[in-house]
């Protein structure tokens, strides 16, 4: 699963010509050296070799992620395709952060539709689990904010359960104000920091 993740990224990178040197084997090993791009010549491209298997499975995964339904093959390719869906930046579950009003754990209507997509996806993929990380802005006391951010994570959890996710797929944790996205002390930063992050894991 992890290796396909790398491979599919690798494939995309190869197609766009960014990581030519990294594509010389099908093992999924990435050589992180983008400085070689300028020196790429045709002979290197001729030596370009990606194993057919990894291309195929990556393509399947990409295909699955566009039509949104996972095709049950064997267990491994199933989790591979789910992983691809999770990794796809344009999928229905690509929004992973839910924002909140000050001192509130109420999920906005806009966020509801986002969570509906997450709930459906989690419900139809039993091998997915999600960590709901609650956060607050810096105002007020730190311990109160731990409780407040926990309440936000619980709100999100309830909606996901309502949409069909099972409780053993969901874990909540509250960071309070300890891990802000933005550290400046403005209304704009605070609104970005009051959030629940959905962190996916494919088992």
């Amino acid at each position, binding site marked *: 699963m992890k290796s396909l993740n790398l491979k599919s990224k690798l494939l995309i990178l190869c197609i766009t010509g960014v990581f030519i040197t990294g594509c010389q084997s099908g093992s999924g090993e990435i050589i992180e050296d983008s400085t070689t791009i300028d020196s790429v010549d045709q002979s290197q491209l001729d030596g370009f070799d990606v194993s057919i298997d990894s291309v195929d499975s990556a393509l399947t995964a990409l295909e699955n992620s566009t039509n949104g339904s996972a095709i049950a093959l064997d267990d491994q390719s199933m989790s591979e395709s789910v992983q691809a869906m999770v990794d796809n930046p344009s999928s229905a579950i690509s929004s992973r952060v839910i924002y909140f009003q000050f001192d509130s754990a109420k999920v906005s209507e806009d966020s509801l539709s986002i969570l509906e997509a997450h709930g459906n996806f989690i419900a139809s993929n039993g091998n997915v689990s999600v960590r709901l990380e609650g956060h607050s802005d*810096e*105002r*007020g*006391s*730190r*311990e*109160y904010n*731990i*409780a*407040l951010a*926990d*309440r936000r994570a619980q709100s999100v959890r309830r909606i996901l359960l309502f949409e069909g996710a099972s409780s053993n797929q969901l874990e*909540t*944790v*509250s*960071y*309070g104000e*300890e*891990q802000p996205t933005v*550290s*400046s*002390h403005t209304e704009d930063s605070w609104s970005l920091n009051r959030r629940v992050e959905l962190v996916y894991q494919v088992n």
Partner: protein
Amino acid sequence: MNRLSKVLILLPLLVLLFSPLNAALTIEITEGTEGALPIAVVPFDTSKLTFELSADIAQIVANDLNRSGVLTVLSRQSLPATPYYSQQVKYPLWRSAQQDYLVVGRVLEKSEGQYEIQFQLLDVLKKKQLIGYSLQTDKRKLRASAHEISDLIYQEITGIRGAFNTRIAYIRAQRNKGRKYILQVADTDGFNTQTVLESDEPLMSPSWSPDGESLAYVSFENRRPEIFIQHLSTAKRNKISGFKGINSAPSWSPDGKFLALVLSKDGGPDIYLMNIETKRLTRLTRHRGIDTEPVWSGNGQSIIFTSDRGGSPQIYEVAATGGKPRRITFEGRYNTAASVSPDGKFIALVYGEAGQYKIAQLERETGNLTLLTDSNLDESPSFSPNGKMVLYASTRGNNSVLYAVSVDGRGKHKLSDQTGDIREPVWGPYKLKQ
């Protein structure tokens, strides 16, 4: 789990044994002390020593006394003379310099690295000695001895026990090169900084054991909040609470046997008491709202905590044996983070209004709320063990820094620092008499 994987898991976390470092917070007096009593502290005689001392005793004492808000110390440049013994003092000289009190002293070498500090506190008006002491010390304890001298002087003049020779704990967060959270303790003047624990994940809510030997705190080292207790001199640490959900806000009971804490394992965050030895839990509150930040009343009979059960966060009190909580703050829509004065008569708290958060003091008997600070992002008030100062964190610019304000609002000073955010200060107890 085998031993190796335990070791590997502990790697991102660095537990440190106490070893004195030179790194220090620096103190800056930010507000004048109107009405404070004038005192002069003459540099102590060190001329008979073989080596220069690593600490300027008189300067440490002068800084301590200045920070109290009760005394104002004459600057060194303005000293009219430099006597070392009471016999050398010409009182009219100090009277015309408008001083009420005068401190003189000297440091003698007993053997290598072993010293005797002698000092006298003189009353300029009455032209007589108030107290005179001789302290045995060694080169590693010079700063502590200086703070002890400050305590003796403060007590003689005010009748109140001094709290200079105590320690504070706080969390330092560093943002450069990835986030780092550091639990530290320091002397009350910000010097003698010692790191207790370093982690890549958040550390929060330090609480002193009543004997000053251990700290309880919250660590996210396992990617969720859990409560640990760590003995300072041995660095031995134990996870004491790792239930599902929130484990936070530990607070040590005055008798050292219980920890008040917040758990959400049975629903919303509620207050529990844990017997530290048996780990047995007693649930104190049961409400679907937020209950958090428990602290003990001075006599250990009740728990003061924050709850939003009434619609907005306010301070409540519940008997340590359980029962119905009683609301005790009524002014304003946001009152949190209580710290109880040692005599139980006052509660320092964070008072929020119109998006501003200030430190305020509630008088229990009258219910009067007095603002102690006038900035807009203040948090985590903590009383000194003599109840005369409140330590707190304040966000200024991009960083949070520590301040202490005297409870009469007369003196305020900043413990500033070069690196990172400093937050959640807690003032430790008096040191036990050896």
